[in-house]
């Protein structure tokens, strides 16, 4: 039997104690992996949401928040053409956003970014001219886009189509009317893909927001500066319009994600600490029980270094097994949780290598930290005293 086989075999002498130690560390690893998968998924979704749409600036009514509080369309539609004429603006699209409860058939309109929403939280419908869909991030449609002014055509996001179990040619009842799904789109943004787009005029009529939009998506010229164009818009309509840029949104979201990252690392550190204490306890007990055996190993000529390596190796074996168990439980747990909850539609768990490397790195570190003292203690035992140990 090789030395490595011996090291792998030894921790299972006391199966109950080793299993308990493994469970303790596995819980920590499971938290690290599950959090990593979810936050990683959130990051990816958020980044694709930000990247969706070619509009660099979103114009909203002055006094409303940048992310868009719910309310009726509050910007006069004529402002869309006014904004388009401003220096540095390449294109502008007025959008009206409404939320429709498919079960309760209630609706409200909102301001904010185009597209988006959760079916369970209200089905999000955005009104926009079909030739401006690219400003909302819809570059291609499987099927065809709706016709401007059409009163019964709609395109739905891929996630929404899956949730509603609809495909091209099917109808969906909104505001008491049947809308034919002419196309299905996919932007990569979970928010946009969970909603639908229809003609701006139709949505305005359905929600009694004639000639009103809730926001204006602005694409700037290639050589223009986002901040400068943003300032131009605000200066032109100081008490009426406000702007928010994709960069500012990204910065805010990045702050939030960095907080989640820090929290995730803090949990990792806590797992290292708690797991480390558990491993120290397990390994010290193991060394105590095997004192005489360690004396025998010294008597037959084992070097202190080999005894240190054996105990440290056993500690690492325990924590790496815990890493495998914790990772498997986390992956299965997250998948099951997302499949049975509504979050499954908005979060695609991340399977980034970085998460698993972090989990196994933490486990390895816990193994080293937890095993170091017991291993040192074992290696320093005087052979005669160890052999006398009862």
């Amino acid at each position, binding site marked *: *039997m090789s030395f490595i086989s011996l090291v792998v*075999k030894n921790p299972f002498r006391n199966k109950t104690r080793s299993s308990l130690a493994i469970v303790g560390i596995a819980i920590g690893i499971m938290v690290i992996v599950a959090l990593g998968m979810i936050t990683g998924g959130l990051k990816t979704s958020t980044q694709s949401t930000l990247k969706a749409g070619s509009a660099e600036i979103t114009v909203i009514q002055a006094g409303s928040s940048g992310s868009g509080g719910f309310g009726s369309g509050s910007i006069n539609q004529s402002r869309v053409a006014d904004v388009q004429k401003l220096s540095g603006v390449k294109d502008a699209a007025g959008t009206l956003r409404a939320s429709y409860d498919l079960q309760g058939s209630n609706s409200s309109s909102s301001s904010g970014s185009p597209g988006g929403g959760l079916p369970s939280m209200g089905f999000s419908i955005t009104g926009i001219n079909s030739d401006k869909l690219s400003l909302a991030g819809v570059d291609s449609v499987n099927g065809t886009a709706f016709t401007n002014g059409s009163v019964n055509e709609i395109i739905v996001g891929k996630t929404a189509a899956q949730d509603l179990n609809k495909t091209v040619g099917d109808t969906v009842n909104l505001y008491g009317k049947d809308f034919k799904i002419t196309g299905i789109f996919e932007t990569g943004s979970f928010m946009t893909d969970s909603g639908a787009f229809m003609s701006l005029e139709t949505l305005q009529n359905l929600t009694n927001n004639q000639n009103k939009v809730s926001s204006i998506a602005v694409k700037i010229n290639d050589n223009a500066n986002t901040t400068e164009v943003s300032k131009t818009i605000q200066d032109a309509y100081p008490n009426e319009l406000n702007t928010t840029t994709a960069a500012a949104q990204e910065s805010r979201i990045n702050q939030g994600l960095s907080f989640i990252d820090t929290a995730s690392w803090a949990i990792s550190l806590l797992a290292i600490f708690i797991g480390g204490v558990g491993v120290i306890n397990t390994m010290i007990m193991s060394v105590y029980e095997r004192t005489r055996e360690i004396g025998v190993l010294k008597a037959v*000529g*084992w070097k202190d270094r080999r005894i240190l390596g054996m105990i440290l190796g056993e500690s690492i074996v325990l924590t790496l097994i815990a890493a495998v168990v914790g990772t498997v439980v986390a992956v299965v747990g997250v998948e099951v949780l997302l499949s049975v909850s509504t979050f499954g539609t908005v979060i695609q768990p991340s399977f980034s290598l970085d998460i698993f490397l972090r989990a196994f790195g933490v486990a390895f570190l816990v193994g080293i930290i937890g095993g170091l003292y017991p291993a040192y203690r074992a290696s320093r035992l005087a*052979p005669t005293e160890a*052999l006398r140990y009862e």
Partner: protein
Amino acid sequence: MNNGNNIIEIRNLKKSYDKGKINALNGLDLEIKKGEFVSIMGPSGSGKSTLLNMIGALDRGDEGSIEVAGVDLMHKSSLNEFRSTEIGFVFQMHNLIPNLTVLENVEIPMYETKLSSKEMHQRALELLKSVNLEDKIDQNPTKLSGGERQRVAIARALVNHPSIILADEPTGALDSKTGDIILSLLKELHQKERVTLVMVTHEPYVAQMAGRIINVLDGRIESSNLT
């Protein structure tokens, strides 16, 4: 200092414990020839186990000199290699590792050698055959009788071809019949392997098996008689 025939030469060896309150060895002198079978007798606390530990390099003396297999044990910095290559221990309580098989227990001393796993396996197997345990190699030691366990311990002691076997009450935990079998085996292996055998015992009958009986009293050699 070493006489070519002596494998163990001890001069004026002193060892005390508990900050000098207990004098285990009190200026002990001893010579043992290569290939000799020696029994060490003496009452409890006379210093015989301490002497065995000194010869086996498990502990160091405070004063005097001790040379075993040509190695100055008072001054050699690391004694692990010496123990691995020159000494084989047989303990009263066998001290086998319970979660390992019989074969794996015998392989344990070979981890510090440069032998491959296959060579280790082969060597352990040969020795287990020589102690008639070839049919028990995959068994757990806890499933063996006391005599069988001691035979495994003897195989383990011999596995690195040591110059000296140190046996501390090897029959102390066995019934007389099994004890006789173990003693015969030790004697046979001593002759076959031409290994020096130093055995601590309380039993005069057991001590008679050796070529020479050394009596230890108060940390000194009281008498040394050929049998």
